[in-house]
């Protein structure tokens, strides 16, 4: 690269690495909820994006409530918003599982159709309630702008926030799945549903809670994405393709696979974007993913499962 000094190249490299890290966090955060649901129950939740947007709208409402009635607490409203987003999306998830999804277990194509219909219904509800236009979610001052490491290296504060949040949530999910009694039951149901039922695990309850948990995480992701993306009735659609890509490429039953897949896709895309252009980067990434999936249809990581 002629014409650029070593410092310049160094700082661009650093910032590019950071851009990749942010993209990785975004991919992982949006895919986690879907991966939990898809992995454990085999349910493809096409309304995942709409659960995220519910979280985003909760954040929007929170920012209004706090700026009007609790201005002293405004700088910290985002944490409350994320908690409420989790609760709201989780509760909706519980309702949806009870009303729709539980009747369609063992019929994966029907859940696909049902949740897709649900996503359309939710979009229209958002449109009727919040209007067709996108809403602007204001951030507290400390979360905006960037943090200068040197003259040429700036680290985005909201990017750092997303990275930190993703690490925390991923750790949380791992702790819950691998260190708690409920997590043990979830994993047992994933591996062998019939046998789990036989040893006394209430698989119905596990299913309902897992679905709600996955939706709740989608809500948190949606809340976090108000910092970097748009909040509108159909904004959930912007994420859904990438989300599925990450989950399918990673291997449906493996959280580790989801992480590895999010990392691979995000790094590939952000590097390619730098050297080619946005559209071309997407094309190449998709081609590579399709190529690998043809060789390994189960995805990167596979968990042995008894059906």
């Amino acid at each position, binding site marked *: 690269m002629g014409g650029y000094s070593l410092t310049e190249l160094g700082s661009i490299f650093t*910032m590019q690495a950071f*851009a990749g890290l942010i*993209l990785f966090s975004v991919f992982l955060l949006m895919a986690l909820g879907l991966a939990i649901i898809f992995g454990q129950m085999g349910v493809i939740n096409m309304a995942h994006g709409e659960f995220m947007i519910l979280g985003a709208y909760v954040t929007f409402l929170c920012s209004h409530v706090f700026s009007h009635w609790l201005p002293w607490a405004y700088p910290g409203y985002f944490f409350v918003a994320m908690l409420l987003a989790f609760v709201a999306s989780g509760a909706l998830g519980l309702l949806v599982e009870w009303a729709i999804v539980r009747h369609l277990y063992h019929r994966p194509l029907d859940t696909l159709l049902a949740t897709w219909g649900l996503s359309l219904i939710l979009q229209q509800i958002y*449109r009727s309630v919040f209007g*067709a236009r996108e809403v602007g979610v204001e951030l507290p001052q400390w979360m905006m*702008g960037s943090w200068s490491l040197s003259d040429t290296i700036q680290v*985005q504060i*909201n990017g750092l926030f997303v990275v930190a949040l993703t690490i925390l949530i991923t750790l949380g999910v791992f702790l819950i799945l691998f260190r708690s009694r409920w997590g043990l039951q979830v994993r047992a149901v994933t591996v062998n549903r019939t046998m789990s039922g036989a040893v006394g695990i209430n698989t119905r309850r596990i299913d309902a809670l897992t679905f709600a948990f996955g939706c709740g995480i989608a809500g948190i992701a949606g809340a976090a994405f108000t910092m970097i993306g748009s909040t509108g009735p159909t904004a959930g659609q912007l994420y859904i393709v990438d989300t599925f890509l990450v989950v399918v490429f990673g291997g449906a039953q493996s959280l580790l696979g989801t992480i590895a897949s999010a990392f691979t896709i995000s790094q590939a895309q952000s590097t390619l974007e730098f050297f080619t252009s946005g559209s071309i980067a997407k094309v190449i990434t998709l081609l590579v993913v399709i190529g690998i999936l043809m060789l390994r249809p189960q995805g990167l990581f596979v968990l042995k499962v008894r059906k």
Partner: protein
Amino acid sequence: MNPQDFDESRRRLIKLFGQTAAAGALLGSGLPVFGSAKPATAAINTTGLAVTDTTVKVGILHSITGTMSISETGSVEAEKLAIDQINAGGGILGRKIEFIQEDGASDWPTFAEKAKKLLVQDKVASVFGCWTSASRKAVLPVFEQYNGMLYYPTFYEGLEQSKNVIYTGQEATQQILAGLDWVIKEKGAKTFYLLGSDYIWPRTSNKIARKHIVDHRGLQVVGEDYFPLGSTQFNSVINKIKLKKPDVIYAIIVGGSNVAFYKQLKAAGIDMTKGQTLMTISVTEDEIHGIGGENIVGAYACMKYFQSLDNPNNKAFVPAFKKMWGDDAVIGDVTQAAYLGPWLWKLTAEKAGSFDIDKIAAASPGVEFKGAPEGYVRIHENHHLWSKTRVGRARADGQYDLIYETADLVEPNPFPKGYQ
């Protein structure tokens, strides 16, 4: 007036017009019409459009559901306001406008189907509608086949002209060239980085911008990048911009991507209030509503209308719009262009003395609208509008400050020589 008076005047009127069948039909409808020199329906409607003695039907065809409803809602509101105002002022050729609204649902084949329904089944005298170029391209053959009249509000890439369409927005050269010239002169810009969403309008517009920058001004384009519609991650390209250090970032990003782009640009420490110049032709006040004023403050937009324009027409238009649609309503460039549609059609119909499509099409060139919120507009022979180009600078409250406007109206040139 009491009923007897009414009957009396009615008898007198019948005596007066008794011979003509048309007038008989007019009075037979039982509605009082006094003192208006109202042309007979048969005379102003020779092709069987939905025109009665008291009403004329028009169509409104926009997406009110789906992705594009974000953008198209404003156009629908503006068109309804214009129709309302025209009706309050007595209508067109003595007829009140009745509109039939159809939903294109952000789906191009649906647009074509609904256009056909409006023209064939409802026989509307004109249609105000479409937003994206894709929807316009989808309905164009329908309007040409069934001979309808479409008033299209969006700024677009040009390279099109039809007898059946009046383009009330800017074609690409009207929106691009004056803005580039301004930024070159005022900012001493030498290098440009072109960005866009990946579809026909940004690509064609950037092609025109590149030709202008490189071939006509001898300056440099240091990068050009496109992103799939709906992209939400721009950190890589922002790094590229930081490396290339262009004098001007020229951005034509649309939809939800817009929000992500400006939020990330701001987060990356690119400050448009000082230092970096950014010019866009795709962010109106409508879009800022979603982006958040604080994320885009300092950016320059090249449009023909800003809500903050200081002229008597606009001073009447903005409050009227807010009265009808709420105080929170924002009015962008396209919304204003949509507002022009019904008015231009009214003026044309009055000039032609007819609702016939062929007569409207023929009478359109030269029609001028002095009440336009953007100032004064006139229809060109090529069915586009003569209008001024303006540069505005985004404020934190989501409005634009007018920085520059061309001294004269800019001629629409949908097939620009030397730019293709």
